[in-house]
């Protein structure tokens, strides 16, 4: 274990490198990569690493980057790629294919606004566009969490009960380019944490086909299996956390991370780095006597419904802050969690940091000021940058 100054991009690439090396006794490691701001440094860093029994293919597009991962994963290797924004949109078709083929590819996403008009800054709309494709989705709040979550993502994705791709999201620039001290695990620890990649349906020597035609009742069955595997992930993840803690000596964050939520009357729900800002604001607001708590949804797919419902129980008011907008509805996180509150709870949506604007503690304070007088929820409110 060593502490290193790393950006989250480099941290994700470091985790992928360690995971890749950990499969050297297995079928090896293969990544497909293509540059896009702000995720470029992840693939650059990966391309500079020596990975025993590993290869990184520098492709001509994100679509092909995931295409390479599909070919590699179908051949039994551990596979990884990284992208952002339009790159993810371009890759989407193959993300769906990897998910439907139940291939445990791990994908690091530096969240960025979709364009044109071109905008390089953080917005969760890129990752959330792929919400329904059957990939696991995690949103991180700091660099250490990105590193740890990438390692956990390999373990989870390749778990025989799960067996599907996993996406680890970090807010573009805010995390991807911020350099902080990150605890980097030793290879020997990662070797113990990650079993050799075993994909039961990988192509071998028998003539079977992966991805041929299927008829409606078979698709129904496959979706049902995929959905059931998704629903089991929160339980499997607890086991992964235990195992991670036993080996690395630190516990990765929960699927849903609560902060001073138990005795709170008011709850502020968010994802990604806004969650860290909210925790800071909650500390300030608590000092002023407000009974307010925070809930950060780290695992977005599958949505940990039971954990969220439990945290929502007994709350009078809930603010859901979205760094994204489903045009014509409102925040996507709000759209998903509002039904999990008890009847009578005021669940109000706030749209903050859309297009990458700074979200600072004072924004959270203004959210609370707007929420507290409300007796019923209204339409989603845009929190303007100050």
């Amino acid at each position, binding site marked *: 274990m060593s502490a290193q100054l790393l950006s989250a991009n480099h941290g994700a690439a470091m985790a992928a490198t360690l995971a890749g090396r950990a499969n050297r006794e297995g*079928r*090896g490691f*293969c990544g*497909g990569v293509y540059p896009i701001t702000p995720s470029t440094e992840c693939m650059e860093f990966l391309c500079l690493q020596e990975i025993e*029994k*590993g*290869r990184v*293919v*520098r*492709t*001509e*597009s994100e*679509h*092909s*980057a*995931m*295409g*390479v*991962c*599909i*070919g*590699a*994963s*179908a*051949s*039994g*290797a551990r*596979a990884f790629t990284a992208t952002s924004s339009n790159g993810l949109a371009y890759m989407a*078709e*193959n993300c769906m*294919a990897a998910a439907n083929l139940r291939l445990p590819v791990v994908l690091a996403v530096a969240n960025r606004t979709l364009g044109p008009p071109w905008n390089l800054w953080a917005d969760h709309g890129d990752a959330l566009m792929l919400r329904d494709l059957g990939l696991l989705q995690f949103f991180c709040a700091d660099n250490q969490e990105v590193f740890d979550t990438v390692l956990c993502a390999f373990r989870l994705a390749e778990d025989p009960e799960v067996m599907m791709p996993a996406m680890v999201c970090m807010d573009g620039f805010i995390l991807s380019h911020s350099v902080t001290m990150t605890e980097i695990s030793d290879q020997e620890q990662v070797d113990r944490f990650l079993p050799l990649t075993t994909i039961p349906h990988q*192509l*071998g*020597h*028998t*003539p*079977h*086909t*992966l*991805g*041929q*035609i*299927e*008829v409606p009742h*078979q698709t129904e069955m496959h979706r049902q299996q995929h959905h059931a595997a998704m629903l089991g992930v929160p339980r499997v993840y607890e086991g992964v956390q235990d195992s991670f803690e036993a080996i690395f000596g630190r516990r990765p964050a929960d699927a849903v991370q609560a902060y001073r939520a138990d005795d709170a009357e008011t709850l502020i729900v968010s994802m990604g780095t806004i969650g860290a800002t909210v925790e800071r604001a909650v500390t300030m607001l608590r000092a002023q006597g407000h009974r307010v708590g925070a809930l950060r949804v780290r695992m977005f797919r599958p949505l940990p419904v039971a954990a969220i419902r439990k945290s929502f129980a007994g709350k009078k008011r809930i603010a859901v802050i979205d760094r994204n907008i489903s045009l014509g509805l409102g925040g996507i996180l709000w759209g998903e969690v509002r039904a999990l509150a008890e009847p009578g709870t005021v669940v109000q949506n706030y749209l903050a940091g859309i297009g990458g604007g700074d979200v600072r503690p004072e924004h959270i304070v203004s959210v609370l000021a707007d929420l507290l007088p409300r007796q019923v929820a209204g339409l989603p409110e845009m929190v303007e940058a100050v």
Partner: protein
Amino acid sequence: MNEPMLGGMAQTALDRALPLLRPGNTNCGGCGMSSLLQMLGHAAADRTLQFVMPASCAAVCGGVFPLSTFGVPTLMTTFASGAAAASGAAAVAQLNGEDTRVVCLAGDGGTYDIGIASLSAAAERNEDILYICYDNEIYGNTGGQRSSATPAGAIATNLRQGKQQPKKDILAIIAAHRVPYAASISLAHADDAVRKMRVALDLRGFRFLLALSPCPTGWKSEPALGMELVRLAVRSGLFPVLEIFDGRRHVINIEPDFSDEALDMYLSLQRRFQRSGITAADLRPDLDQLWQNLRALSGRIVPARRSS
């Protein structure tokens, strides 16, 4: 013209124990891709193969889950990702020291059009892949729409009048990547085709084979006449049969006799050329130019066609 009767295609003890294309597949009668797979099985003999297929008739031919038409492990991938997924599979085979030949089998839509970016990139990286394009000159799987492989004068379901533009010269495009091997094969000349399949299977790096693949459904031709049509296309000079080593050395494998009669027969036996009324005389100037270039590239001084 050198066309031995069985073209070396008789079943021998050297053949694979199981065919690449198993009985019960759903290909149309007279499909060129079926013949191609039979020849490939013959050429591959006991070599270990793995197929990667983008969306195509071949992908449909693969059969309905959980059955599989193909006699080797096969990965179906998205339309534009044939060469990319094959790159990943080939990389893993190489990392594990396996002698598996990764064969990407794609139609002209997946090769000339939507898949050309990933194809070009894999060729440029010189990935260890054998890429085979069965070119039926249309989007056959969706019912016969125009592709950039559709020849001048042919109609398509989305093209009422005959196509104005000539087809893309994909072989020249691939050869321009300086890949170790790029060749066109005639399904009507099995000796030559099987020989080149073996060459392509045994070389390392990026290899490309292009086969003119009769599609009775799309060409509006008699299923039984497919091989004859290919023979006419080769004989008339419409479909040059050649191999290109390292993008530099061009070898013409089958000499056409540049017969206008053969070319007119090729056109008249397919209803797709009927509406435009295109004739050998319309095509000949372009073909003369094409063959002059091929002569120059192959270092032969024989003129493409003697002026009569």
